[in-house]
Each structure stands twice: as structure tokens, then as C-alpha cells.
């Protein structure tokens, strides 16, 4: 198979390999690649081409999904440099961060018990701000300082926030729908 599955996701879309990313450029590069490899382009082709298209379109979508999410993108960049973020096994976190996590959990639980969608939406906005700050720091650590260990810690923190965001989303959904 000639299609280079080994090339990294950044090269696939012709983007520089760094955390800072022009979202518009990623979107339009993805659409360009998708337009070439989407199975619809091969609807009247042979089975070989259909199979290849399915595989490549799947790969392109996966690459896009990875680069689009700041957390997945940072994790992926670290993986490319050989750093495993060990999010499942390494859960040791600074005490103040863990304290903040517990406070978040409590606030979400209370808003959920009160069926207070607005409070949940407010929490989601606050969480979003915190996540943006972490992403800012990730950009510095990965693109400027080359601080890979620091970046790995930031990825683990961001993962916590993403889980909280998911929890808030689920709570809102269960109240609304």
C-alpha cells in the first residue's frame, strides 16, 4: 500500500507540526483531502478502489478529529516525540488542582440536584475559560519552551477538565431532553 499511513497527521493536511493551529486552514485542508478519498468518489469503481477509499477516508477523518481537539492534538504531538502522557495510570496531581476538582464536582452535583440548567450552563462557561487557559499554557510548553514533561502534566489536567465538561453536558441533556 502506497498511501503513506506513516506520515503524521500534520503532513497529511500540509500543516506545520505544532500546537498552535489555524482552525480554518485545518477545516479546508480536511475538506480537500476528503473530497479526494471519500467513498462516494469511487461508487462506480472496483472493489479494490472502494476498499482503499474507505480506509483512507476513515484515516483522514480520524486525523482531522485528532488535530481539531486541542487535547487530542497535544497528546498526539507528545506521542510523536515519544512521550506517553499515561493519563490512565498517572493520576498524581498537585493538591490545589485536586481541591479545585472536588469543588467543581460538588457544584455540578448541586446544580444537577436543583435541576438548574442555567447554573450548569454557567459552570460550563467557567470550565471552558479554565480549559482555554490550560491550552494557552500548552502552546507555550510545546511550541516555544519545548517543555515536554510540563506539557504532559498539562494534558493530564486538561483531560480532567474535559471529563467534567462531559459530565455537565450529560447533566444538561438529561434535564432538557
Amino acid at each position, binding site marked *: *500500500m502506497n498511501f503513506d499511513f506513516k506520515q503524521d497527521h500534520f503532513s497529511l493536511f500540509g500543516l506545520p507540526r505544532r500546537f498552535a493551529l489555524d482552525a480554518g486552514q485545518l477545516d479546508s485542508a480536511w475538506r480537500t483531502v476528503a473530497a479526494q478519498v*471519500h467513498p462516494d468518489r469511487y461508487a*462506480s469503481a*472496483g*472493489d479494490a478502489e472502494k476498499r*482503499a477509499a474507505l480506509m483512507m477516508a476513515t484515516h483522514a477523518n480520524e486525523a482531522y478529529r485528532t488535530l481539531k481537539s486541542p487535547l487530542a492534538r497535544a497528546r498526539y504531538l507528545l506521542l510523536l516525540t515519544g512521550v506517553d502522557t499515561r493519563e490512565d495510570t498517572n493520576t498524581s496531581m498537585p493538591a490545589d488542582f485536586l481541591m479545585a476538582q472536588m469543588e467543581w464536582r460538588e457544584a455540578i452535583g448541586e446544580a444537577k440536584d436543583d435541576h438548574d440548567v442555567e447554573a450548569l450552563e454557567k459552570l460550563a462557561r467557567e470550565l471552558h475559560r479554565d480549559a482555554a487557559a490550560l491550552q494557552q499554557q500548552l502552546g507555550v510548553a510545546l511550541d516555544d519552551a519545548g517543555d515536554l514533561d510540563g506539557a504532559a502534566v498539562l494534558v493530564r489536567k486538561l483531560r480532567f477538565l474535559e471529563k467534567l465538561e462531559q459530565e455537565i453536558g450529560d447533566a444538561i441533556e438529561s434535564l*432538557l431532553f
Partner: protein
Amino acid sequence: MALLQIAEPGLSAAPHQHRLAVGIDLGTTNSLVATVRSGAAGVLPDEHGRSLLPSVVRYLDGGDVAVGFTAQAEQSRDPHNTIVSVKRFMGRGLADISEAAAQPYRFVDAPGMVQLITRAGPKSPVEISADILRALKQRAEDSLGGELVGAVITVPAYFDDAQRQATKDAARLAGLNVLRLLNEPTAAAIAYGLDNGSEGIYVVYDLGGGTFDVSILKLTQGVFEVLSTSGDSALGGDDFDHRVYCWTLAQAGLSGLNAHDSRLLLTCAREAKEALTEHASTRLTALLSDGQAIDLTLDQDTFRDITKTLVDKTLLPVRKALRDARIGVDDVKGVVMVGGATRMPHIQKAVGDLFGQTPLTNLDPDKVVALGAAMQANVLAGNKQDDDWLLLDVIPLSLGIETMGGLTEKIIPRNSTLPIARAQEFTTFKDGQTAMSIHVLQGERELVSDCRSLAQFVLRGIPPMVAGAARIRITFQVDADGLLAVSARELTSGVEAHIEVKPSYGLSDEDITRMLTDSLAHVQDDIEARKLREAIVDAESLVDATRAAIAADGDLLSADELAGIEAGLGTVADAIAGNRTVAINEAAHQLNRLTETFAARRMDRNVQRALKGHNIAEL
């Protein structure tokens, strides 16, 4: 039998010849078939000039099958053998059919899907749908004067894997080559000509006879990207009829009606609903079998009141889709109304109020889906080379597997762009364990019992090891049609046992052949001749495609590789000349294998070229 025309190898049969392809809207209440001729999409009418084919199938004495208006006309007289709204039963078990009691049918539960007892024997919804599709295929081939290369069949965006698989099986049973299962709202978006320079976010609100869909699409330079989709696959215009029907029973103090009378009153209810689109009030009259006369007047306001909860029920998925797409109503540039039920004025008002703008209704809401499907079929059949568009659709419901304690773990989240694949690794729970049971589910709920069970299979032949040592990777692949395939590999033993798992409710090739034989025995068609014809059509199009590929990108092949492919082409041509189905399929299969690497290289080149053009354009 007519002699088959075979072009000389190298002079492939007119590559730019128009290939006959159709779009089919297989609806709950009505179905349509459309095609693109001389660049314009149009619905193909029957010999009386009627576009709609009522999705009604009646099984008659002597093995005959009536489809459409003739079947519809008899539905009150022969309710058990006249099946309406079969789409509601596609991919569904008896337990899923909530209104089963109100239906005049005799259901039996069968593995995977319910069946209906008719005088022609038990019929699965797949077989009944195939009868509708067969009628549409016949209509298309009669009016186009040739055999179809393929069809795009539309499905509600919110259809799950079981319902999609059932639809695809029905098409195969009807002898149609499915180019694509296309989501109805996406088809509507194409038909609305939203590709013509329209950019921005559009909402498609699609209330059909029995299903409700909402899709949010982002249009950018000919790309239709679905951001999110939601809906209710058991909510539609039929439910509005049912409300009017219940209102009629209450007003007239009726209960315990026989099948004939309840069908009669349901028909009256539907007519009353339709009349209220144009009039402020309507009369409802019927003569029941015991001689009792029904004469009631239903006005707009009462109708609105008794159906208000249904309208509200459609707005919930709309809000959910907006939330999933992470957009607000202010971001929406236009709202497209699709499906006959959106003619109801109070629905248009409710949607207009929610979005703060008048919904778009300038295309016939009954035809728009079929027209869009025809346009997509035209592209997929290869009739349109330049300035075509790209559809990026999503999976409507999350896919997951059962974990300990009856809980589901999501593997592929809803609204992921298709195609998508995810792999998950599993390990053994006990020492020496050699088998493992995997349960695949679709839905958003946490409990297994609240999700739809798609497939349950046992992996065997795991090498005995201590608990937790085996590593089994299971890959879930969802293709552009939204259909799932599961494969599993055992990684530790060095031997990669590879298995393909088809969801349990899908029909096997043997099932299809058996059903085809059953149905064709009646039509006296020659199944072998048909298989041969199909094999030749497929092989010829493969030869055409391969020759075109060599002409365009032959430089990617070494002399040896080219010689190998040429030899493969020769074998296919010989096999076609020999008129033997098995030999043709085998030769085509070989040619496919020979061109695998070539196909991948060409795609890679196209990607590189496209990206280059793209980067220069951006400078």
C-alpha cells in the same frame, strides 16, 4: 434471448454513455422514484401521470401482489393482507412496536425482526419493502427504457444500523444495486440547490409519514457537512392521523371497532388532516359496518389542540441537534421544510417561531427527497464529472459495547463524521479463558436494556493464558452508508485470527438468494440469466474504470505491474465472452486484487495534487 453486445477490448463501451441511475424515496406513506435527464432532476410518474406511489402492498389470492393505489383502495376491505406504513416495522422486533395493538395486522415475532401474517404466508418488513421497491424499479425501467446501473435509496437520518441494514437488504431483494443509502434531510439539502453558491448553516426539518428527522448542515464550497442530526424514528404524519382518529372515537363514543371500521376511520382522519391545510374546518363522515353513520366537524383550533404535544415533541430533537452542533438559532441562515406533514400550518408556525424566520417551502415537500437522491445517484453513477459536490454525513446514534454490570461503553460517539473506525482492546477475565462474548449496542443511554442491540457474537479460539494476558482488538468500522462491520484480532499469539462479524439481523447472501428464488418463481423470471446479466454489467464497468485509470495514471505502474493488469483485463474479457457467471465473477475478483496497490497510489497522488492546488490558492 437477445444477444449481448460486447465491445472490443481497448475500445471500451462508450465511456461517456449516460448510465441510468435513480433516486428512490422509500417513504412511510408514499414512495417516489426520480432521475436526472438532460441535466434536470424529475420524478418519474406512473402510466396515469401520478408521481406518488402509496407505500401500500396487498397480497392477493393466487400469489399476486398489488402495490400502490390499487392496494390502497382495498385496505379497508382486506386489512390483514394490505400492509401500510411498513417502514415503521423495518429492523424492529415486536417489543419495539408500541402501537401494535392499534394495528389491524397479525404480527409474529421472528429473530431480529417482526413478521406479518398474510394470506401469502409470513412476510418480513424487508420482503414487503422489496415489493414496493420492485414496483418503483419497474416504473423506472419502463420509462427510461433500459436496465438501471444503480439506485440511491433514502433513509431517515435517525435510522439506526438495524433499520439501515433492513433497507439495504430490501433493495438487494428487489434486484437494485445500491449506490448509497442517503439520509433524507441531506438529500433534501442537495435538491434545494443549496450548493449553488449558498454558504452557511442550514437546518432541515423533515417530518414524514412515520419518521421525524432534523439535520444541521454547514455548506462550504460545494461541501455539505452534516454537523449534527437528531430525530424520532417513530413520529410522523401518521401520528397526527391517529390523534384525529382517537378524537373521532371519543366524539362518537365508539370503542372495540373491527379491523375494517378502524381502517376506514383512519383513512377519514387522514383526509380530514389534509383538508385542514387549506380550510378552517372540515367534515368527517363515514358509514360503519353495523350501519352507524359518523358525521363530525373538525376545525383548525381543535386540530391544533389535539396535536400540540406532537408538534412539541418534534422541537426537542431540534434543540438537541442545535446543542450537539454547538450553535444557536441566530447562527442559522435558513430552515428547509421537508415531508408532506410539514404542510400543516401550525407546524410551519412553530418552526418559524423557534428560528425567528419563515421556513423555506418553495419545493414540493413530497418530492424534494427523491429529487435530491436522483441528483446524488447521477453523481455516483459517474454521469457528472466536474463541479460536483461532496456529502460528509454523520452517524446519528452512538455505538457501544456491553461491559460488566449491564452498562454500555461508547466506542463511537453520535454525530461523528463518516466513515469512521475505532479499535478497542479487550482481555480475558479468567485463567485459560478461550472464548469471549461481545455485545454491540446503539443508543445514548447508559443501560444496555435501554439501547438497541445490534449484534451479539462469541469470539472463540483465544489461546489459553492467565487472566488478563490475552489481547483482543476489536475494530468497529462504519461506512458512508452508516452501516457497521465488526472485525476482531487476537494479538498476543502472533497468529492474527481475523473474523468479520455481520450484525445478526442482516440477511446473508443465502437468505437473499432463497427469497429471490421464492419471489421469482412466481414471476417466472430466470434467476441464472439475471445473475449472468448482473455479473457482465459489473465486470464491464470494472474494465472501463481500470482502462480509464491506466490512461490517466499509468505512469504509476512498473512495466511488470502494467503487464499483470493487462493480463487480468484480458481474462475478464475472455470470461465475459464465455458467458459464464462464475468465471466472470472470479476474473473480476482477480482483476480487483491486481489493481489494489494501483488504486491506493492513484488516490495518494490525487490527495497530493489537491493539497498543492489548495495551498497555492491560499497564498
